[in-house]
Each structure stands twice: as structure tokens, then as C-alpha cells.
């Protein structure tokens, strides 16, 4: 088989896969960034049951492979629905599982990624928030500021500044983790390249995907460097 597909055609196909990769990446960040903050508040809650519930959840998610979580989320609902049918039970939870079972692979991927990354982000947020000295809160309190005002006007930006380095690490890892999506049949960049192995016996498109990952991570690195520089006007 001599070059039945051109470089241009491969590039176009890979771009298609890359768009799907970007979609997983973008949606994961969109939901996991705020959800992570909510989870971090939970893990710092003074209400002990909530705190430990959240901590156990974070432990489970961080303590198991993302690949396993993808499989559980993809196949779990179906298995539960089947078991429920056999047992003849039906309730709200089973209905939900039934609905999830009909979600597209892409949706399942995003759900699994959002949960996983929100947990990682929550730990980074928690570290950042806890590293701010009590003096900053107290200064706000004696100036008559509310807890909310202190968090949003005083603490948050200092936290953002401190967590940029670990967050950029995590986000760059996310770029590469998107390649796990294909194990539950969600289309993305690696999958797009693998198709050429099956159909044309071509290996080089797979290697070529590295260029896309590298370029994207390069852009992200520049972006984070820029943000870091933007926040370098103050020290905290």
C-alpha cells in the first residue's frame, strides 16, 4: 500500500479528533474548576460529617485510576439497570441510572473527567486557601468586612496566585488524560490516528498526534507563564 492517503488528509482527520479532545478538555475545565471550589469548601467544613464524607470521596477518586472510573461510569449504570430489572425494583435512582445508560460516550467521559479533576483541583484549592495567614482574615474582620467580602475581595486573588503553578501542572496533565476517553469509545485524537493503522496500516499518524499535544501544551505553558507574570505585581 503506497500512500493512499496524503499528509493533508491525515492532518484534517487528526484535527477532527483534536477538536474532540479540545471539547473534553474545555468542558472538563468549565465544570471542574468551580466544582472543585465547592468540594474544597466541603473538605474544610466545620460540619464534621460533611467534611469526612467529602474527604472519603476525594480519597476514593484520587486513589483509583481515572481509567477505572471511566469504566465504572460507563458500564455501571447499565449493570445496575439490568440487575434492577431482574429484581423487579424501580425507584428514582434506577431511573437516573437508566437515563445515564443512554448518555453518549462523550457525555460519560466528561462526567468522569469532571468528577476526577474537581477532586484534584479541590485539594489544590484547599492547600492554597489554608496557606493564607489568619492575619488576612482578621484584618478584614476588624475593618468590618463580612466573611464573604473577605473571601472574594482579599483571599481569592492571593489563592489564585499561589495555585497557578500546581494548577498548570494539573491542567497540562488533563490534556494528555483526554486520550483515555477512547477506552469507552469516545472519539478523540489518538483514536483518530489509530484508525489509520486499521484502515491503511499507517503508524506515522499516531506519532504525528504528538505534535498536536506538544503544540497545545506549549500554548498552555505560555498562557500560565503570562498569568503568573500578570500576578507578579504583588507578593503574598
Amino acid at each position, binding site marked *: 500500500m503506497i500512500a493512499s492517503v496524503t499528509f493533508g488528509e491525515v492532518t484534517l482527520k487528526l484535527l477532527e479528533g483534536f477538536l474532540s479532545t479540545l471539547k473534553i478538555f474545555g468542558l472538563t475545565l468549565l465544570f471542574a474548576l468551580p466544582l472543585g471550589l465547592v468540594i474544597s469548601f466541603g473538605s474544610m467544613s466545620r460540619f464534621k460529617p460533611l467534611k469526612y464524607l467529602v474527604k472519603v470521596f476525594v480519597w476514593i477518586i484520587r486513589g483509583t485510576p481515572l481509567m477505572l472510573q471511566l469504566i465504572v461510569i460507563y458500564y455501571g449504570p447499565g449493570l445496575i439497570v439490568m440487575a434492577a430489572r431482574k429484581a423487579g425494583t424501580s425507584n428514582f435512582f434506577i431511573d437516573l441510572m437508566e437515563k445515564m445508560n443512554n448518555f453518549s460516550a462523550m457525555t460519560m467521559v466528561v462526567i468522569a473527567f469532571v468528577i476526577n479533576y474537581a477532586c484534584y483541583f479541590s485539594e489544590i484549592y484547599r492547600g492554597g486557601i489554608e496557606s493564607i495567614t489568619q492575619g488576612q482574615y482578621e484584618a478584614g474582620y476588624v475593618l*468590618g468586612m463580612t466573611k464573604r467580602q473577605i473571601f472574594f475581595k*482579599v483571599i481569592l486573588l492571593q489563592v489564585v496566585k499561589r495555585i497557578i503553578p500546581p494548577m498548570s501542572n494539573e491542567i497540562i496533565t488533563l490534556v494528555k488524560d483526554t486520550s483515555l476517553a477512547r477506552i469507552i469509545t469516545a472519539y478523540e485524537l489518538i483514536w483518530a490516528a489509530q484508525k489509520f493503522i486499521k484502515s491503511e496500516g499507517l503508524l506515522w499518524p499516531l506519532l504525528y498526534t504528538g505534535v498536536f499535544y506538544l503544540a497545545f501544551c506549549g500554548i498552555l505553558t505560555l498562557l500560565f507563564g503570562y498569568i503568573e507574570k500578570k500576578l507578579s505585581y504583588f507578593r503574598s
Partner: protein
Amino acid sequence: MSLLEVRDITKNFGKAEVLKGISFDVEKGEVLSLIGSSGSGKTTLLRCLNFLETPTSGKITLSGETLYDSEEGRNLSDREKRDRRLHFGLVFQQFNLFPQYTALKNVTLAAELLKREELKREKASAAAIKEALEGVRLKAAELLDSVGLSDKADNYPCQLSGGQQQRVAIARALALEPEILCFDEPTSALDPELTGEVLSVIKGLAARKMTMIIVTHEMEFAKNVSDKVIFMDSGVIAVEGTPDEVFGNSSNARIQKFLKSVNN
């Protein structure tokens, strides 16, 4: 009736009794210095006045209004604490400026939030709010000027010396027009050559009859600026009186020992 009346304040941290029944008065326009060795409870007392800690028991009255009375229940809501805190200002040993804001913004931030809240409650027009906030900024600029930092308004805390940061912190506390301004060792974190500029700002405030409670280890300063001095020892007031009475007190061995220890 004194401006501030503190009665039998106690504070326990777990089993440790840190304040064991503190009572004193502060008159309007008076400067009270709190001295005493480290661990005697001075910071805890200031924190109780600023509602950063809740006293275990006792009563705090300001202009006849009860701010805190342990017999009426210990638990104040966040809202109640906040209302009470506004009567007091506190300048910290470590300045605690907000690092991401300029000197000017440090001074205006809380005052603006408060002003905005107040005017919103009164359903003031957007134009009125804008004008009021402009007023807050003008006043903040004046305050920075009064602590000798008009040329540093646009600098961030990391660009200021410790002495300058502490002066910004004083301006920031003054922006909320507290009835009583408290200082917790305002010069202890400063290099010796920078203490003078902060102390002279405080002296200026005293000359303008600002009511102040000052925790300090600067004995000369305390002697000069205070109307009243309290020497604390292990959570109680050991000696209390005018500067002459306290510093000239030769009968109390504890204070003699303390004065000797800070003078060398």
C-alpha cells in the same frame, strides 16, 4: 460614665486561663498603654475588645451601650460581631495589609464596601453612591497624607518598608473612624530605625485626641504618650495608674523586674 468600661473579663483557652478578670475604664480622648511581659495576655485582651475572641465571661460597655455581657449569652452572630467591631480599630504587629492592593486601595477597600452597603440600604441613587465613594477616596488620600505617605498611594505593600506599611495600616484603620483605636505592638516587627516614624504618627493621633489603647514594649514612648498605663502580669492587672505612678513604682517587684528586662 466612661467611654469604654471593661468589667471582669476572663478568657480561657481550654484549661488555660489567659485573662483572669480584667477591669478598666478608658475616657474619651485618652491614651491607655498596656505593658507586660510576653504571654501576660495583652494581645488576647485587645482581641476580645475587637471581637476576634469572645470573652469567657465579663462585660464590655461603650458609651453606656452594652457591647458584650456574658450573662446575656455568649454567642454573638457574625452580624452582631461585625457591628461591634466597627466601634474599634486594630493595628496589628504584622501590619496585615492586603498585598494585592495599593496603599490607597488598602485604605479605601473596607470603607467603600461599608459606604456602598449603607447607601444601598437607604436606596440611594447610583449618582449619590458614586459621589460618596469619591468622598471615601478623597478622605483616604488625606489620611495617607497625614501619615506622611501621599507619595506612596499607588505603591503595593511589597514596595514599602515595614514602617511605611504600618503607617498605611494605621491610615486604613482610621478610614473607618473607630471610636477607639487599638495597637498591638505596632513597632515590634520593625527594624529599630523604622520605629520612630510609626511612633510619631501615633503621637500625632494622641495630640489630636484620638482615643487609643496601645500594647507596646517601647517604654519611653509609653511614658510620654499615655494618660494611663496598665501593667499586666499573668492575666491580671498588676499595676495601674498614670505613667509616673506605674514607671516610678518601686514597691512592686514584678514591675521593677519587667522594666529592667525591657530596658536592656
